[in-house]
């Protein structure tokens, strides 16, 4: 039954062929590209509306469920574009369009039952099948309307609107030989015209940008013989088709807006210093295999975090929290040191709980766990909340000095730059190679003064420049 219907539709198309070929030729002459906008505005139709019936799926299946539409009414489709997914009896089927044209009507909603042999969509075509140059299009069976990635896998598909195809056909041009300058290599009318002019040296009909040329040239151009072009035909200026995209801020970004607004209400002051980590680098190199023997990956962060905790024992005000009205200050007992992590979700700050009770290796183990959770997208609220002090290792990506922003309800934060090999003078006045890392602290100036920050930083620095000192104070 489907075959009979197809045949009759073809006949109708062939009958109308001559009629709208003429009509469409007039359209291209007036340089009006086919657009769906035009169709809505004008009452004149450019082509017949064809009912695209759901063809036989096979195995005697008479009905299927429509699961997903890839197009909506008003969308332009080309032959072989995917229209929808239907499902029947464990078989998932992609229905592709048989015609070029514009979708005028969808007969079913998602989850509705579609009948084989009955209309699925109405497509308004504007050219007969003979004009759709099948030899230029390679089959792309399971391609969705906007799944351009598949095009690379499945072979070239020349994109061109029906009007462009017609123009090419009338001038005996193979679309595969024309370079498309439109979006995703789409062939535009200008590309056909350029191709033509290169081939035959014919004079191009005046395109908008050509009118900007100085008058004498414009007057001279049509008079010069076709064979002897005075200059190369003007190359089409690349047209920037990018559009601004506006989206509402949602979820995480919206929440961050509130956090950051609150953060910058805190009067920040910054304090920067440099730390000579040459000895630390040597120590870590020595301890790395030992840690690996215990199944732990050891980086520099556990040392930085432990040293910070030892410093906080001497300067507990840096591990405090003030309430909103800044009336009360709470000295937090636990050192829950947060580590800023760059994940696919954005900036997340999981924290290591109770660093004051942990050894360097324990901290390393915790960091491994948090990093694994962060990578697999499993960080929960327990790990992400409750921090009292934060370190940001921005140096792992790059940078030296930074200006970190305090994360409320904390009162201090440190940003660590990258470790650089720099020339320094030692105590004997000799020039040596030193591993230098820059650190930038920010603190809440309402309760912390510069001197406190400076002393904390000096103590932290001493632990890292002389790791042996850390051993003396380890709890």
């Amino acid at each position: 039954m489907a075959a009979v219907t197809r045949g009759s539709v073809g006949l109708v198309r062939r009958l109308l062929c001559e009629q709208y070929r003429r009509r469409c030729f007039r359209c291209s002459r007036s340089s009006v590209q086919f657009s769906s906008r035009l169709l809505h505005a004008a009452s004149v139709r450019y082509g017949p509306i064809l009912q695209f019936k759901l063809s036989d799926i096979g195995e005697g299946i008479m009905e299927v469920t429509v699961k997903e539409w890839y197009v909506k009414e008003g969308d332009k489709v080309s032959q072989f574009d995917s229209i929808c997914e239907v499902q029947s009896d464990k078989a998932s089927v992609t229905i592709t369009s048989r015609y070029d044209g514009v979708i005028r009507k969808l007969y079913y909603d998602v989850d509705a039952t579609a009948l084989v042999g009955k209309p699925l969509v109405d497509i308004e075509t504007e050219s007969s099948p003979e004009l759709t140059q099948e030899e230029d299009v390679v089959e792309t069976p399971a391609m969705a309307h906007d799944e351009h990635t598949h095009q690379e896998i499945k072979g070239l598909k020349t994109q061109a609107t029906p009007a462009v195809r017609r123009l090419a056909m009338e001038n005996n041009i193979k679309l595969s030989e024309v370079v498309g300058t439109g979006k995703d290599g789409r062939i535009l009318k200008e590309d056909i015209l350029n191709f033509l002019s290169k081939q035959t040296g014919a004079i191009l009909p005046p395109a908008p940008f050509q009118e900007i040329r100085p008058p004498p040239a414009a007057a001279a151009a049509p008079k010069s013989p076709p064979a002897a072009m005075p200059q190369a035909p003007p190359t089409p200026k690349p047209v920037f088709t990018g559009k601004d995209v506006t989206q509402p801020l949602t979820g995480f970004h919206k929440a961050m807006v509130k956090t950051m607004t609150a953060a910058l209400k805190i009067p920040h002051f910054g304090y920067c210093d440099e730390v000579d980590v040459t000895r630390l680098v040597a120590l870590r190199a020595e301890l790395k295999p030992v840690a690996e023997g215990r199944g732990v990956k050891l980086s520099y962060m556990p040392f930085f975090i432990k040293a910070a905790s030892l410093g906080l024992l001497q300067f507990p005000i840096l591990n405090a929290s003030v309430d909103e009205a800044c009336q009360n200050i709470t000295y937090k007992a636990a050192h829950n040191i947060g580590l800023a992590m760059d994940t696919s979700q954005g900036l997340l700050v999981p924290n290591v709980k109770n660093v004051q009770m942990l050894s360097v290796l324990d901290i390393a183990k915790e960091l491994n766990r948090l990093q694994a959770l962060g990578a697999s997208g499993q960080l929960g609220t327990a790990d992400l909340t409750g921090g009292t002090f934060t370190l940001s290792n921005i140096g792992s990506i790059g940078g030296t000095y930074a200006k970190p922003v305090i994360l409320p309800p904390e009162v201090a934060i440190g940003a660590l730059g990258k470790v650089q090999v720099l020339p320094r003078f030692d105590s004997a006045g000799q020039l040596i190679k030193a591993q230098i890392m820059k650190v930038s602290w920010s603190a809440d100036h309402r309760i912390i003064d510069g001197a406190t920050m400076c002393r904390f930083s000096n103590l932290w620095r001493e632990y890292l420049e002389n790791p042996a000192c850390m051993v003396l104070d380890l709890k």
Partner: protein
Amino acid sequence: MMMTSHLRRTLCVARGRLGVGGCLPGGPAARPCSGGGGLSAAYEQGGGEGAGLILRSRSTDVYQNLALEDWIDANVDLRRRSVLLLWRNRPAVVIGRHQNPWSECDLRAMRAAGVPLARRRSGGGTVFHDLGNLNLTFFTCKKKYDRKRNLRVVTDALRTLRPGLDVHATDRYDIILNGHYKISGTASRLGRSSAYHHCTLLFSADRSALSAVLRPTSRGVRSNATPSVPSPVTNLLDHDPTLDWDQLLAALGAQYNSEFGFSAVETVVDPSDESAFPGVGGAAAELQSWDWLFGKTPKFSVDTRLELREEESGVRGSAHLQVEVKGGVMDSCRLGVSSGWLPAGLSGELSALLAGGRFCPEHTAAVAAAMLRSQPAELQGRLRSLCDAVIALM
């Protein structure tokens, strides 16, 4: 409306045995393929026009194997030849094209156990794959699409190995052993001119593992997604412990040749070989993307009550959550909390932050953490318990 079917394991009395080794062991008929040669070597073996190809994947990564299926479907000219692909995966849960992962499997248990989720392009229900489960994919042009004939290859091969074995294919394209237990389920995908039909074959799958994951993540999920229907299953090895994996594969290959008149020799292929299968890496990456795995879920809603408990004080409360999820994103979110548990407006604030975001625990935890930062200390405990209860649904 036709009810689509499924394959779902339930806990059975007998235990299964996990297959050993990383990839399918080579049988006597298998030839390893060289570097970029891949299919061309196999073509030569196949014998030219109108021939068949038997391929065996050396990978046990579910995404690579699914990407290989897509590649064959798109790139092999199936009018000239048909293909049989044999593959198996490390433990993974595979849902059908139009299914809802939150109602089909326990995503939290899977994350904890390291079992990945995959969504295939064919329809049908949810299956648990592991190394004791063999997958067969029959690729043909659309005209030659015949599921009954493909299943006959499987049943005939089994009967060749063990004459008198009571296996037959049903109208629903399942294979039943001893008239009662399902050992194979089917799904297929039809494109414009090509089609593939794949089925599982339970050889020695671990049934206790699958019962832990094949249950819903959250209560209160309402959707029109294709449901799975459970049925009693068994392993071939449970029925006949003398069966051998390599022999089974060889018998299947031989029966494929015999049924369709081919003379193909089994060729081992590597789906991670980009030179042999250009674009397969990108396809595998797409199959792992959030947009494919979760974004392709048909729209659904969640409507449920949450039990809350503040950790420190032990005070209890309750909340009511209503979410509409479209394309994996929370289109609308309404969260009502029992009076007195939280200040008025706070649950509304949380709902507003969640709306428009992904129905995903990581995303929601990040939003919750960011929101908690700007809240006073005394509300932290209760707000966190509310956020955790919402995240537990995802």
